């Protein structure tokens, strides 16, 4: 199977076709977009089988292929594709979730005036995301990285008539772009010493001691800045909750399952460099990840928009994956990424069904939906329990593995905070479920016509729910072997040496008890009229307000933008106009005019004046000559 490049190329071709001819196609060409991503999903299987057949060959590139795009001296950008285990996991996630989301979108986006444009951009995004995971060199990865960012920009701002959507799109692009400044500098720094962008060649160069430790540490931390932006880690996480302005299927695909995990993928891919660098690099990864976790779980407690709560849970999950990577475990991070893609897409798409049915998305207007939307409530519950880490759902196995590896690191601060986050996660996911589906409806008007969505939307939900139920078992060696893999997830996804999945009972039991405690507390606080929750909010007013205002980070950033960035722009603009131009440029011109004005008084027109000037001149010149010659 040497045609891996077809996987991104087919959706790319679909994008071009939809852009040019979309409005002439029946149904605006939605079938073309779905057909393209389905084709990519189908091609994924021979690629997978090919990889399994060749696992023992170290130089196997999965039928990768490269075309020269830019070539100038040492500066080469290849359109190079490469398949390994890490890529395979990402390919599976991206192509499957993209397919599910696009099928779901047919019903969800029906009747939208820009229906065709939506599917064109979905194809564009899929092409860029698939290129990102297949790229064999850092610059192509960067190209795709910016490409998914652009797709996200357009799709967040898809309903750009809404001021909030336009602002959210802008915020997402600019915030991630700040991280990308670091990413690009880091890539160029790696290139400068190694003379190549090729990832495996950079690894060889680094293992040969090509980079000094400080240089490599700086470079990987700059790469990590890119991941912080894209994967919405503290302090650049602020764009992700706002990004919920996009259509809900977009949130499911881009802001849960695929694009936001690109940063995780990047760090996982480059982990050998992080390990060669100073240990401080991985400590930074852990610290940033843990901060993100703690901030997001607490913010999840107070948010009332159903999509924003799920967005905070995404931040929570992304932070957990970063903690896993900070502990040096690609397996744990990728297992969580794999499981998360399914249950988070499930949560978002179920939320989409709720929004579609009720046209409301604020918890204060929902409630009591389980009788109206039984299927949705069950699949949503599965997703929520998986997020909370309850046995035997996918999220349980993945989260436990992260707890294990962070516990292995002997860092008790990390471990304690991780356990605390498990409790709060269960707490706010319970709150979300309880406030949405149980109790009495708070807005009867919204509930009147609510019902489970049509099959076009429900089938993807059921498929994702099924995967959430069983997906976690891929962690086990025997399950993997039964499916034809050389062991479990851990043995499959390795970079240097096999990293087996391990399952200490003590951690599992402890985390399960904590999660159940969280659920129980959630039920206590928020069921019925949620009186205990109100009392808690009343008595902890400053805490509540801090959380409800997202730790005032958005306000702080806005202040910096208004009073530093934009004010700086205004000051420089003023300086340019008044100092550089009006003073220096016009001033020097005015000086010329003034000099001319002064000189004109020498033009008296009287012969004696001129004769005097000539005589004086002769005398001066004579004196000068005398002085010089002597």
């Amino acid at each position: 199977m040497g045609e891996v490049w077809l996987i991104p190329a087919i959706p790319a071709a679909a994008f071009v076709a939809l852009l040019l001819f979309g409005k002439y196609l029946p149904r605006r060409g939605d079938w073309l977009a779905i057909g393209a991503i389905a084709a990519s999903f189908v091609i994924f299987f021979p690629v997978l089988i090919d990889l399994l057949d060749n696992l023992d060959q170290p130089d196997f590139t999965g039928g990768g292929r490269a075309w020269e795009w830019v070539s100038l001296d040492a500066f080469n950008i290849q359109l190079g594709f490469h398949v390994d285990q890490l890529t395979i996991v990402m390919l599976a996630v991206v192509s499957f979730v993209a397919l599910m989301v696009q099928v779901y979108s047919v019903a969800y986006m029906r009747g939208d005036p820009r229906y065709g444009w939506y599917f064109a951009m979905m194809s564009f995004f899929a092409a860029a995301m698939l290129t990102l995971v297949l790229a064999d060199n850092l610059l192509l990865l960067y190209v795709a990285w910016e490409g998914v960012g652009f797709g996200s920009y357009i799709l967040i701002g898809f309903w750009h008539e809404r001021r909030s959507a336009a602002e959210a799109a802008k915020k997402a692009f600019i915030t991630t772009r700040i991280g990308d400044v670091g990413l690009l500098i880091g890539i160029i720094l790696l290139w400068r010493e190694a003379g190549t962008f090729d990832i495996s060649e950079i690894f060889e160069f680094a293992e040969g001691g090509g980079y000094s430790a400080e240089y490599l540490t700086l470079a990987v931390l700059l790469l990590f800045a890119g991941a912080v932006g894209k994967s919405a880690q503290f302090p650049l996480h602020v764009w992700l909750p706002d990004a919920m302005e996009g259509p809900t299927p977009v949130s499911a695909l881009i802001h849960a399952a695929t694009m936001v995990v690109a940063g995780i993928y990047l760090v996982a891919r480059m982990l050998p460099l992080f390990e060669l660098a100073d240990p401080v690099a991985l400590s930074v990864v852990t610290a940033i990840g843990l901060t993100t976790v703690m901030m997001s779980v607490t913010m999840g407690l107070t948010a009332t928009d159903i999509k924003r709560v799920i967005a905070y849970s995404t931040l929570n999950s992304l932070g957990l994956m970063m903690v896993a990577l900070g502990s040096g475990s690609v397996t744990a991070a990728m297992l969580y990424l794999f499981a998360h893609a399914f249950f988070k897409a499930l949560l978002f798409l179920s939320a989409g069904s709720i929004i579609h049915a009720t046209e409301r998305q604020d918890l204060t207007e929902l409630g009591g939906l389980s009788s109206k939307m039984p299927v949705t409530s069950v699949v949503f519950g599965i997703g929520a329990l998986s997020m909370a880490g309850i046995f035997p759902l996918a999220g349980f196995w993945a989260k436990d593995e992260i707890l294990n590896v962070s516990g292995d690191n002997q860092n008790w601060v990390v471990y304690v905070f991780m356990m605390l986050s498990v409790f709060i996660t269960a707490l706010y996911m319970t709150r979300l479920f309880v406030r949405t589906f149980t109790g009495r409806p708070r807005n009867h008007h919204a509930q009147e016509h609510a019902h489970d969505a049509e099959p076009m939307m429900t089938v993807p939900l059921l498929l994702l729910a099924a995967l959430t139920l069983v997906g976690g078992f891929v962690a086990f060696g025997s399950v993997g072997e039964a499916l034809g893999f050389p062991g479990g997830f851990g043995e499959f996804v390795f970079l240097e040496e096999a990293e087996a999945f391990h399952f200490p009972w003590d951690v599992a039991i402890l985390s399960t008890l904590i999660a159940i405690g969280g659920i129980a507390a959630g039920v206590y606080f928020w069921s019925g009229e949620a009186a205990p929750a109100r009392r808690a909010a009343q008595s902890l007013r400053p805490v509540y307000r801090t959380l409800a205002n997202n730790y005032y980070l958005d306000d702080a950033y806005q202040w910096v933008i208004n009073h530093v960035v934009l004010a700086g722009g205004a000051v420089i603009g003023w300086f340019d106009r008044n100092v550089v131009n009006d003073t220096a440029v016009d001033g020097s011109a005015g000086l010329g005019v003034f000099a001319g004005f002064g000189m004109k008084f020498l033009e008296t027109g009287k012969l004696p004046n001129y004769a005097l000037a000539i005589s004086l001149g002769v005398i001066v010149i004579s004196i000068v000559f005398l002085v010089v010659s002597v």
Partner: protein
Amino acid sequence: MEWVLFALIALPLGTTLVFMLIPSRYSQLVRYTALAAAAAMFLMSLLVFIRYEFEGGSGLRFDLQLDWLENIAFLGENGITLHLAVDGIAAPMVLLTGIVILAGVFISWNIDYRNKDYFILLFALVAGVFGVFVSQDLFFLFFFYEVAVLPMYLLIAVWGASSNFGTFVRTKEYGAMKLVLYLVAGSVLIFIAIFATFTEAGQGTFDLPVLGEATYGETFQKTFFPFYMIGFGILAGLWPFHTWSPDGHVAAPTAVSMLHAGVLMKLGAFGILRVGIGLFPEGAQFWSPVLMTLGVTGALYGAVSALGQKDLKYMVGYSSVSHMGFVMMGLASMNSIGVTGAVLQMFAHGVMTALMFANVGAVYDQTHTRDMTAFGGLANKMPRHTAFWTIAGLSSLGLPGLAGFIAEIHIFVGTFQAGYYWAGALGILAAAITATYILRMLASAYFGPFNERWASLKEMRFREQSASVLLIFFIVFMGMWPKPFIDRISETVNNLPGIG
């Protein structure tokens, strides 16, 4: 094929004569004549680009040498000749000029006031621009340089627009005068340096290939390189000699802004490369840290200034200062990646800034304001216009797949390779600031709820769309398949003296 370069200069000059024969009441005939001539120029420039033959070395293609003055007075063999040729640097620039003039004629269609005189001046300007790019004779290079600059005065002072910004007023006369006087000041420096070069070489000729073979003392190079650097740099918007540019753009009519930012500013950068670096590599090496500092300062300063603007044309004008700062960074890197990037950026910026000005003009024609805060939700009324603006903006902020990225990545890589880590990092930061001002503008003027004040707004006219599509084609083409550009440019750049 040697005739093609001569024809490229002769055609616009000849067309000005044709215009003079057309009675000015036939304004439609004037327009179609202009369109036909511009289309012919575009095709010829395309021909020059496509038929450029790779032969290795720094060979000159389409080489044509017509004697003018020799063996008299101070002139020796081949003293002053009309020596026309293109190399890999000039070929994309010729193409750029062809593209922008064709788009400019489309945009100039609605000039009603004395449109014959307008086109005469515009075509004289274009003849000068082509002349600079293809001249291999320093005398004619300077001659054409002046031919390109001077019509600007009348074009802005007669067909331009004065603006009152509340706190300050910029009249078109002021903009025109400042622009031309400033550029003439640069010409004085160039003029001095040309005679110094001629004398030091002692060959009795202005022929550039001959001058390039001559040897110049190190002190001489270090003394006179700044004359070229600043003299040409003024036209390239080199910080801090850039202030003619935003005011000039604000005053100029749309098509003049397009040519001006799109092509004319490139003459300056081209001059630094062809004459400054080409003749005085050691001088350039010595001054490159200064050029790098000025370039990166301009890139950041322009971007931050653009962030502070409300007027669309000022924003684009400052963004030009910023992007020309990238060109300076590329030149200052003095290695093949960076210098190639500089030439790529000249092309990329030329096309995308022309597109930006064309789009500003399309809105201004209908609304008579350029204040971005006065708009809102224009995407509802002008979806295609919004798409064009977005593409221009995305190219400008360096989105992969569009021309700006290809150019900027070369410049950044070249800058890092030359060891200017700080400058490379600040340059990348400037590109991120570009994203900020472009997206802020799009969000406030084009997205969000529609401002009913503009209910009568219509989509861009067909000819304006044609111009935009032409420009976008090249933005996407270069972004997707940069190889034809890179191969041509690098073939020549690698043979320049002093380029590591």
